């Protein structure tokens, strides 16, 4: 039978275990909260590290999710200092609601590519419309999902693919994923025969399991990423310093390494 003391001993063990887990060292300044589109994950992790190297007193906390989710969080009062969106729609939304300080600037551009598992059934763009090919797209509410549908529409207007091409590909869609990373994961796991993602999502790690098929520039959609400090930022100077770092040659070089196209010249 378990005695009261046995319970007490277990409780002590759990408490000791909790005490042993080291708590993060405190920093001098308030952390900087950067809300960034999921597609910026790897690049912004490096930019955040570069920022912390320059400002050791300040920690950068990245909140990475779909731009639409981030915009909703900011709208409902989440503590955010900087917002980097994958779609002008959500930034415009926040501007209209008076939550953005100053004018957002386009800091980077991104193009769509088709990703397929290595050794899979899809070798060329035409194959996307073949019967029983499993295609995953992001949901229409996600920016990349909307761009993907625009590309398919453009392909339908191109005689090389034929006008029913877009509809045939859409009929092959087996899932409308909630983020671009979920689309990539389904292709990486080999569950889907093809997916449409940003060029920046085909990272070095992803390239071991997936292959890229380029979409001709004429049919492609270029996503423009706006960046801005938010009105609610607690330390405007610190937030501006982060924005400046992203648009600086150093920040742009990091973004280019991760498959992004440079933003238009200011």
């Amino acid at each position, binding site marked *: 039978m378990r005695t009261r003391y046995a319970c007490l001993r277990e409780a002590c063990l759990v408490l000791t275990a909790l005490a042993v887990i080291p708590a993060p060292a405190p920093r001098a300044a308030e952390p900087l909260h950067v809300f960034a589109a999921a597609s910026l994950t790897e690049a912004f992790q490096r930019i955040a590290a570069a920022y912390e190297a320059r400002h050791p007193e300040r920690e950068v906390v990245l909140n990475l999710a779909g731009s*639409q989710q981030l915009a909703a969080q900011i709208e409902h009062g989440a503590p955010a200092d900087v917002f980097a969106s994958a779609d002008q729609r959500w930034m415009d939304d926040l501007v209209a609601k008076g939550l953005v300080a100053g004018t957002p600037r386009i800091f980077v551009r991104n193009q769509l590519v088709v990703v397929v598992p290595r050794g899979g059934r899809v070798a060329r763009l035409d194959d996307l419309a073949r019967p029983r090919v499993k295609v995953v797209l992001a*949901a229409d509410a996600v920016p990349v999902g909307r761009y993907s549908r625009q590309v398919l529409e453009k392909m339908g207007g191109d005689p090389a693919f034929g006008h029913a091409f877009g509809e045939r590909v859409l009929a092959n869609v*087996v899932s*409308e*994923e909630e983020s671009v990373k979920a689309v990539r994961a389904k292709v990486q796991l080999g569950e889907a025969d093809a997916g449409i993602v940003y060029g920046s999502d085909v990272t070095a790690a992803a390239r071991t399991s997936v292959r890229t098929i380029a979409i001709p520039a004429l049919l492609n959609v270029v996503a423009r990423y706006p960046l801005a400090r938010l009105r609610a930022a607690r330390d405007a100077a610190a937030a501006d310093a982060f924005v400046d770092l992203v648009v600086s040659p150093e920040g742009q070089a990091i973004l280019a390494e991760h498959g992004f196209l440079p933003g238009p010249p200011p």
Partner: protein
Amino acid sequence: MTVRARRRRGERLLGLAWLTATALFLALLILPVAGLLLRVPPADLLRRMADPLVLQALWLSLTTSLAATAAVAVLGLPLAYALATRQFAGKRALEALVDLPMVLPPTVAGVGLLLAFGRQGLVGPALAVAGISIPFTSVAVVLAQMFVAGPFFVNAARAGFEAVDPALVRAAATLRATPGYAFRRVQLPLSRPALLAGAAMTWARALGEFGATITFAGNLPGRTQTMPLAVYIALQTDLEAAVALSVILLVVSFGLLVALRAVPRGARP
């Protein structure tokens, strides 16, 4: 102050603490539900209910969650019985295994299901030979719900079997009842309230399942988009629609849970 008066005062204070605790806990349950209910005008709710996409998601949610509950009840009952009545090597490990889905983040459960039943998973290629492909189908939705909600039934059923007085089973045996007959006529009826409660919990958890479903089964309206997925996708564009869908799910689930509890006493053992 007499001893009796002091004792009476102590009783009153305890009663007050009791009431306060209950009120605080109920407030935590009621306030979010009230927040959702008060946000949507009833007319708006009816209009959304008529939306084919909503009906589709609601129907899919109800059918898959009921199928998952039935499957868990059939497949989980023998295991629950064994755990309640037998001692064997590795029982502790088996108990931990049964509880595992409750602590696993559902998204991880979804990845695990893909790595098991997916095209490149452990048993996926063998299934593919037989022409069966599970991911992105309604079957995947049911499997995800079974995985995540199964422990609720097994644990409840086990507790039910454990509560049956062994003397009754022995008495049945002395009356020359075979073990199978005793199980059907003694243990099963006596544990019925526990089995029903376990099935209700499993069904409720399956109905709310999100993470494992969107990871393993994907999100396609009509085939794998259950109500929780529809709510999540709606939340990305239209908060009002998401709240309305949640309220519909809430009302339907609440109604079914109340109906389950209202099973007439006479129908129970």
